[in-house]
């Protein structure tokens, strides 16, 4: 590919960077432009709810590459300007500042943004946690030791709860499930973690939906639950999930459903590819549409897209992965391979849930679809093989025990 417009990557974060860097590593020497609406060069998000929020790391530590790296990679960075619209027929990207970027190939890596509960707005003590600015604002808020109410029982919320307790804030977490993380990790594991949160002084309000963030004289004062009950608060963190950033693709012809609908190779048609949190693709084995919001997936997909762009449509290969993510809470590290959501059974394989040191497999329709470990990394890595092989369960149980010992 030696045409002049080159590759334009929209979204300057983990996935976009991996795509741009992947092109260079594979020897592509045409122009590569990285467009991002945030003012910063790509930075790492997972520490936002962990080390950065806790004040352990300064923001500079989150940078994914140095200024020198960008020069060496010969990337054109267009930061602080959002992509506004796309005309695939003309191969033109319109930016919000009125400028236009022609491209031969476009990569969509615009990720997701934090959702707000219906009818609520951020500001005045109500927070979300997705960007560096969000994290710094929340950190500043926590330094005043507010009564913090976290709405939603997802990973970002529970990690923030752990940090806020360490910073000596009063923390209440409101979740619709029986425990935070129940829908992702299943009842058994979610209860183990809920107990850890209670021990650390987090008040869990379960089986409740927050319907409104209350304000008085421009300040957040509480959260109203569906039951009518009001939980008083000086600060609120909304952790109710995220929404793909695809509005700018409206009218472009790029297929958008829950994210950008790609094929198995992450191709979306018309010389457009997608990677990371924004991309949805059919699983090469099951055909089921997946879209995952995991850090390693963003890197893997960015690299896969780079390889496929250079290989060309006809030789592009299907994206295959064993998804991985981790979460840190109170010094516990939870690590997960595969897909735990939607499993119909969870079996503890090794260790003990009481000691909070164990591995477990997640089984769906008689096959291993996921594996989780807390404080037992090596045995967990062995279970990854069962997830990758979609191994039948319980037939694979004996094998799991062997892998465990070998692991």
């Amino acid at each position: 590919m030696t045409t002049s417009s080159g590759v334009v990557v929209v979204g300057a974060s983990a996935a976009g960077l991996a795509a741009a860097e992947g092109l260079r590593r594979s020897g592509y020497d045409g122009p590569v432009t990285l467009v991002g609406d945030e003012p910063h060069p790509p930075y790492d998000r997972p520490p936002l709810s962990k080390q950065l929020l806790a004040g352990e790391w300064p923001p500079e530590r989150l940078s994914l590459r140095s200024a020198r790296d960008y020069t060496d990679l010969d990337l054109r960075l267009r930061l602080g300007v959002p992509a506004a619209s796309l005309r695939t027929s003309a191969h033109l990207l319109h930016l919000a500042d009125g400028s236009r970027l022609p491209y031969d190939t476009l990569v969509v890596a615009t990720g997701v943004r934090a959702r707000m509960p219906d009818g609520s707005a951020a500001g005045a003590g109500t927070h979300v946690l997705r960007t560096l600015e969000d994290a710094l604002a929340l950190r500043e808020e926590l330094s005043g030791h507010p009564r913090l109410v976290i709405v939603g029982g997802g990973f970002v919320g529970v990690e923030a709860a752990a940090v806020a307790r360490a910073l000596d804030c009063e923390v209440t977490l409101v979740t619709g499930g029986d425990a935070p993380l129940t829908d992702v990790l299943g009842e058994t594991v979610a209860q183990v973690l809920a107990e850890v949160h209670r021990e650390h002084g987090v008040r869990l309000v379960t089986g409740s939906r927050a319907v409104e963030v209350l304000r008085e004289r421009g300040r957040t004062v509480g959260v109203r639950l569906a039951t009518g009950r009001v939980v008083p608060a000086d600060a609120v963190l909304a952790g109710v999930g995220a929404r793909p950033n695809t509005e700018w693709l409206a009218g472009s012809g790029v297929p958008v459903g829950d994210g950008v609908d790609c094929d198995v190779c992450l191709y979306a048609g018309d010389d457009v590819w997608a990677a990371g949190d924004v991309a949805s693709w059919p699983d090469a084995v099951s055909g089921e549409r997946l879209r995952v919001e995991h850090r390693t997936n963003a890197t893997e997909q960015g690299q896969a897209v780079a390889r496929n762009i250079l290989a060309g449509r006809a030789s592009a290969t299907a994206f295959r992965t064993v998804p991985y993510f981790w979460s840190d809470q109170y010094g516990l590290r939870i690590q997960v391979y595969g897909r735990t959501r939607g499993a119909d059974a969870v079996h503890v394989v090794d260790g003990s849930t009481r000691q909070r040191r164990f591995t477990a497999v997640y089984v769906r329709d008689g096959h291993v679809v996921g594996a989780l470990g807390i404080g037992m990394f090596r045995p967990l890595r062995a279970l990854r093989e069962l997830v990758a092989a979609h191994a039948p369960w319980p037939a694979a149980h004996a094998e799991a025990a062997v892998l465990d010992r070998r692991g």
Partner: protein
Amino acid sequence: MHITVNEEKCCGAGQCVLLAPDVFDQRDEDGIVVLLTPRVPAGQEAAVHEAVAVCPAAAIEVRA
């Protein structure tokens, strides 16, 4: 080629170990990277460079 790893940045994803098991390992309890050798073994150059690129935490560095 000389390899260094930054344990504090490592998120324990284990991508490096899958690619170059002779060079990288992980701690038993939390999966943090352990460097088995700072020198790239012959024939492993490509695998190590691949590990640098896939490491989600940018925790691995290779210098000439």
